C-alpha cells in the first residue's frame, strides 16, 4: 500500500478534532488554570509552578514584553535551554501574536548571529540562569540582565527599531507560533514557520496516542527549541494537564534519580540519550533499572538501531517505542503505538490525520511494499520557510505534499525508513548538514576544499571531515579542530578530520563523497581529533 492515511478515525472525526483545538498554543494552559489551578504544570530544580501560576506568569510576561517594545508580528528570539523562563517567554510571545524564534543556546556565535539577522529579531532574550552558553551569547550581544520572579536572570538584548512586524493571518490557527531554524543542504539556515494549528494538532494527537492525563509526569529533556521538545513534550504535556519536569541537559545520574523520586511516567529521548543510559548502566555495573511509575519510553530524532532498542528494553524491562519526523512536519510523521509495540526498529504507523505517499525515482507512486521517497500531507505541514519562497515551493508541491527526501517502505501499515536522499548526518540526535560544516572549513585561508560525511557508529553517526589544504601549507588537524570549535556548535564539529592531498572530483568539480569515504576506510587513527 504505497499511499496511507494514519488514522483509525474518519476524515470528519479528524476535521472535528482540529476544529476543537484551542486557537493559540498559549491557550492550552487556561482550562487547567481554571479547573485544576493547583495541579503542577512546570517543575525544575529552582522551583515549580502550578497551572494557575503558569497562567499568571504568561499574563505578566505579555505585559513585560510589551514594555520591551514587542508588537504583534515581531520576531522575539529566545536563546536558551529548557526552563520556566524559556517556556513562559515562548507562550507569552505567542499569546501576543509575536513570533517566538526558538534557538538552542549551544549554537555557535556565528549560527546565533545568522539566525538573528535572518529573522530580524525585535528583541533577543537569553535564559541565562540555566545556561552558561546563553550567558556567553548575552554578554557578546551587550544584553542587560533582569531578575524576574520564577525566571531567575534573563538577558535582554537591545531593541531593534529598524525591523517591521509581519502582517498576521486572519485565521488565528494559521498564524506563526514558532520559528525554528534548520540548516539546509546549501549550508544556509532556513526558518521553519510552524503555526498554532500545526503545533496544537501535533500536541493533541501525541497526547491522545499516549493517553496522557493530569496524573502523568513528563521528563522534559528534549530541547524545547526543537520541534519534538516543543510540540510533543511541552505542548503535549500542557494540553493534557500533566506535569512537566524541565531539564536543561541530559545527565544519566540525574535522570535516574528524577525518574525514581518524582515517579516520572513518560520519558521521550533521542537514541543518544538512551545510549548514554546504557553506558551509565555499564559503568555503574547496573543490570536492571526498574521505575514502577514509568509507562512509556520512546525514541525519536535519529534512527534507532536494534542494539540500543534491545539493550534499553533489557535494562528497563519495558518496550522502547520509536518515532520519526522532521521539523517541517511539526515534527511527527509516524510512531509506534503503545497498544502495538514493535520488536524491530520500524517507526510505526502514520500519525493520525496525516497522509503519506511513497514516490519512486520515476516519479510514479511506488508499488506495494516498494521503496520510494516519502511525501507527507496534513495539518502538521509547516506554513513555509521564512523569507524563502523558492525553498518553500521546492519543498511543498501545489497539492500540499511535503517531500521529506527520505526513502521509506510500508510493511503491514508500518513505515520503515531505508535511507536518506539528502545527505543529512544525525549526530547525538541533532541534524548536521554537511554543506554547513564544509562552508565553515572552506572559509579557513589554508583550505582548498572539504567534504563532510557521516560514519555510523553504535547508535549514532559521527561527523567526519576530509580537508584538502593548500599545497605547502603547514595546516594541522589540531588547528582545524580549533577553528571548527570557534565557528560550529559542538554537535556539528567533526569527530575526525583527515587531511588529504587531493579529492576525487566529478567533471563539474564536485567531490565524489562515496569514493572518498571508501579510499580512506578505515581512517588512520593518528589523525583522529
Amino acid at each position, binding site marked *: 500500500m504505497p499511499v496511507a492515511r494514519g488514522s483509525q478515525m474518519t476524515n470528519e472525526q479528524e476535521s472535528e478534532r482540529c476544529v476543537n483545538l484551542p486557537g493559540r498554543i498559549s491557550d492550552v494552559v487556561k482550562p487547567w488554570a481554571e479547573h485544576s489551578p493547583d495541579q503542577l504544570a512546570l517543575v525544575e530544580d529552582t522551583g515549580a509552578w502550578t497551572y494557575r501560576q503558569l497562567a499568571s506568569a504568561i499574563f505578566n510576561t505579555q505585559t513585560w514584553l510589551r514594555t520591551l517594545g514587542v508588537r504583534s508580528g515581531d520576531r522575539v528570539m529566545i536563546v536558551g535551554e529548557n526552563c520556566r523562563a524559556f517556556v513562559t517567554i515562548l507562550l507569552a510571545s505567542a499569546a501576543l501574536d509575536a513570533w517566538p524564534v526558538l534557538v538552542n543556546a549551544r549554537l555557535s556565535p556565528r549560527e546565533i548571529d545568522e539566525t538573528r539577522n535572518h529573522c530580524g529579531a525585535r528583541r533577543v532574550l537569553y535564559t541565562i540562569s540555566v545556561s*552558561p552558553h546563553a550567558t556567553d551569547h548575552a554578554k557578546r550581544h551587550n544584553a542587560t540582565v533582569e531578575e524576574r520572579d520564577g525566571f531567575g536572570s534573563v538577558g535582554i538584548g537591545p531593541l531593534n527599531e529598524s525591523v517591521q512586524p509581519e502582517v498576521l493571518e486572519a485565521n488565528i490557527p494559521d498564524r506563526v507560533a514558532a520559528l525554528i531554524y534548520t540548516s539546509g543542504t546549501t549550508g544556509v539556515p532556513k526558518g521553519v514557520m510552524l503555526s498554532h494549528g500545526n503545533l496544537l494538532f501535533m500536541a493533541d494527537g501525541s497526547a491522545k496516542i499516549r493517553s496522557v492525563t493530569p496524573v502523568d509526569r513528563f521528563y522534559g529533556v528534549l530541547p524545547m527549541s526543537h520541534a519534538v521538545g516543543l510540540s510533543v513534550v511541552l505542548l503535549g504535556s500542557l494540553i493534557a494537564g500533566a506535569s512537566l519536569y524541565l531539564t536543561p541537559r541530559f*545527565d*544519566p*545520574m540525574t535522570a535516574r534519580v528524577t525518574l525514581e523520586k518524582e515517579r516520572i511516567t513518560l520519558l521521550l529521548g533521542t537514541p543518544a540519550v538512551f545510549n548514554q543510559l546504557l553506558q*551509565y548502566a555499564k*559503568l*555503574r555495573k547496573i543490570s536492571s533499572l526498574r521505575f514502577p511509575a514509568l509507562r512509556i519510553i520512546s525514541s525519536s530524532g535519529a534512527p534507532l538501531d536494534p542494539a540500543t532498542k534491545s539493550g534499553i528494553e533489557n535494562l528497563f524491562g519495558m518496550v522502547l517505542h520509536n518515532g520519526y519526523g522532521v521539523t517541517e512536519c511539526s515534527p511527527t510523521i509516524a510512531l509506534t503505538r503503545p497498544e502495538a509495540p514493535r520488536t524491530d526498529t520500524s517507526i510505526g504507523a502514520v500519525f493520525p490525520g496525516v497522509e503519506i505517499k511513497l514516490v519512486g525515482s520515476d516519479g510514479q507512486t511506488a508499488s506495494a511494499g516498494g521503496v520510494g521517497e516519502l511525501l507527507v500531507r496534513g495539518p502538521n505541514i509547516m506554513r513555509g520557510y521564512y523569507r524563502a519562497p523558492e525553498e518553500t515551493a521546492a519543498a511543498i508541491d501545489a497539492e500540499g505534499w511535503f517531500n521529506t527526501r527520505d526513502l521509506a517502505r510500508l510493511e503491514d501499515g508500518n513505515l520503515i525508513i531505508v535511507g536518506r536522499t539528502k545527505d543529512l548526518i544525525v549526530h547525538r540526535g541533532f541534524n548536521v548538514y554537511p554543506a554547513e560544516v564544509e562552508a565553515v572549513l572552506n572559509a579557513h585561508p589554508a583550505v582548498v576544499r572539504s567534504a563532510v560525511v557521516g560514519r555510523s557508529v553504535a547508535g549514532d553517526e559521527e561527523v567526519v571531515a576530509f580537508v584538502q589544504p593548500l599545497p605547502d601549507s603547514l595546516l594541522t588537524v589540531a588547528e582545524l579542530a580549533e577553528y571548527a570549535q570557534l565557528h560550529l556548535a559542538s554537535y556539528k564539529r567533526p569527530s575526525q578530520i583527515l587531511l588529504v592531498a587531493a579529492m576525487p572530483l566529478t567533471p563539474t568539480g564536485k567531490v565524489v563523497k562515496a569514493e572518498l569515504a571508501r579510499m580512506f576506510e578505515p581512517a588512520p587513527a593518528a589523525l583522529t581529533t
Partner: protein
Amino acid sequence: MIQTMQTTEIEHEIRSYLVDNFLFGRAEALRDDASLLGGVIDSMGAIELVTFLQSRFAITVEDEEVVVPENFASVKNVVAFVERKLSSKA
C-alpha cells in the same frame, strides 16, 4: 593507607585524573573553583569520574550524592566530598 591520605594527596590524585582524562594534560586549565559538571566534564565524564573515585579511594558514591551540586561543583568540592567519605569510613 587510603584512610590517612592528606588533603593534598587526594587533591593531587583527583586533579591528575581530570587533567589527564579531560583536559589533554593542560593542568593550567583546571582552576580550583572551575565548574566541573557541564564545564570541565560532561555527563558521561561525571560517571567516569565517579567510577575512578570509587576504585581509587575504595568508597561508594551514590547517584543521589553526585546530583547534589555542592558535592561535585568544583575540584575543591569533590576533594571535600571524598574526605568526608573517607573520614566516615575511618
